[in-house]
């Protein structure tokens, strides 16, 4: 425990050091504010434009949650079907893997044509981009049951539903959570890129506006907001993982 605290303390101190260095370099090299604002400028600006930042952040957050939620709701049952159906695993899955190679963000302009400038097109991009890692990891997890475990389940006369619920699914959970962690970070990317393409609200929109006005400080504020969102969501997923599968992390001696 104390080891963990020393570690997080050293991370925080290093971060503060780096920010101080940034501040110092801006002063020493006399970098103009329209190229690189100092951390102090950025923090001040965040306070000034707080309500605007929160408003746009909440739009992007909703898109992320909806997209990510969709990919869980669709991805996990889909993975179950792929694992249990011969047709899906043989004929359909390779096609999906192929589709995965298409950069999902390239579909953004198309989806905006189909679904309009509103939130729906952003949700769909966030969904598409986070769907595949969740699907693939869930499939890998569901397939990870060893022969010994299967033998045990058979010796206990478990039926196929019980094999799924008591063996396969819990066995797959660590892998499913690994998929969630990749998925949530990608959902953030998807939502922002979709907003770049065309939107009237959200952090991506704000970023574009700030760029067109050469407002570099505001751009940095958006980046900070996105960093906070990305980090926060990732840690939220990690926290849920630790709570719901305590046997997993601990069995590997912590992170």
């Amino acid at each position, binding site marked *: 425990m104390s080891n963990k605290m020393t570690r997080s303390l050293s991370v925080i101190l290093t971060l503060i050091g780096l920010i101080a260095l940034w501040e110092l370099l801006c002063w020493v090299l006399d970098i103009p504010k329209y190229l690189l604002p100092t951390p102090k400028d950025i923090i001040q600006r965040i306070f000034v434009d707080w309500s605007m930042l929160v408003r746009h952040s909440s739009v992007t957050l909703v898109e992320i949650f909806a997209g990510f939620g969709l990919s869980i709701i669709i991805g996990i049952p889909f993975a179950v079907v792929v694992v249990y159906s011969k047709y899906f695993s043989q004929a359909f899955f390779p096609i999906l893997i192929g589709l995965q190679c298409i950069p999902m963000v390239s579909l953004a302009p198309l989806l905006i044509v189909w679904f309009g400038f509103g939130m729906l097109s952003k949700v769909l991009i966030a969904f598409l981009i986070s769907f595949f890692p969740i699907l693939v990891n869930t499939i890998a997890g569901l397939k990870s049951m060893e022969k*010994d*475990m299967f*033998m*045990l389940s*058979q*010796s*206990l*006369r*478990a039926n196929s539903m*019980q094999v799924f619920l*008591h*063996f396969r699914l*819990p*066995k797959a*959970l660590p892998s499913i959570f690994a998929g969630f962690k990749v998925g949530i970070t990608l959902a953030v990317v998807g939502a922002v890129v979709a907003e770049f393409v065309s939107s009237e609200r959200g952090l991506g929109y704000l970023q574009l506006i700030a760029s067109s006005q050469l407002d570099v400080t505001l751009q940095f504020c958006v980046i900070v907001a996105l960093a906070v969102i990305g980090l926060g969501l990732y840690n939220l997923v990690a926290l849920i993982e630790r709570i719901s*599968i*305590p*046997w*997993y992390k*601990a*069995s590997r001696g912590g992170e």
Partner: protein
Amino acid sequence: MAGKHIVIQDMEKVFKTRSGDIQALTKVNLDIEASSFVSIVGPSGCGKSTLMNLLAGLETLSGGTILMNGEVVNGSETGNAVVFQKDVLLEWRTVIENVLLPLELKNITWFDRKNKKTNLEMAKELLHMVGLEGFEDKYPFEMSGGMRQRVAICRGLIQSPTLLMMDEPFGALDALTREQMMYDLLKIYGKFKFTVIFITHSIEEAVFLSDRVIVMSPRPGSVLKDIKIDLDRPRGINSRKDQRFIQYVDEIRGVFQSQGVLSEV
């Protein structure tokens, strides 16, 4: 509760593989008395695990029949418990939940509170018997190999088996733990008096534990020798010094030597 009486008649097992058929077992005939402790020894790949899997209904026969208490085995019999070489504990379940798993799969615990309580007590009692009291709520990763295998044995015992099958259950343990596990197993056997079929490649282990040792030939596996072990029970550390113990071990070793399974050069 008495153990099962098992009769194996002309057992055949062929595995079909891409590179042709493999005859794993051929013409295996055995009559295993109720409540006896029978070990099966043989070189690797002789089909002893296959023999156990067939008895447990985990593989299908290619020929012959198995009778348990006079009835032909068809995969629906009760009272069979299996302990594997790997403990195969479910990492996401605590020790007591692992022990209760077989009952949960039979849907005994779910809707019946009264049963649930007696089952829980039974599980605790079993864990107590193997020296794991106080470990009920630990996860498998917190336990040593020997402790994990004890949990796996409890998971077998909670099914109130009349036939306990063990496939090299101590094979993955260190020598000392292994010896302790043997004493514990004998104690358990003395208490429950079920039929035990014990697969091992350790001659000493087989002689020490059993009423009878079946020696199997290399593939295709068949019964090479059937040796009755006439050592007094209860057995303990001193049984190993018994002249008869040493003779039995020598005899079995001799069988392997004559088969070319063991050679000095």
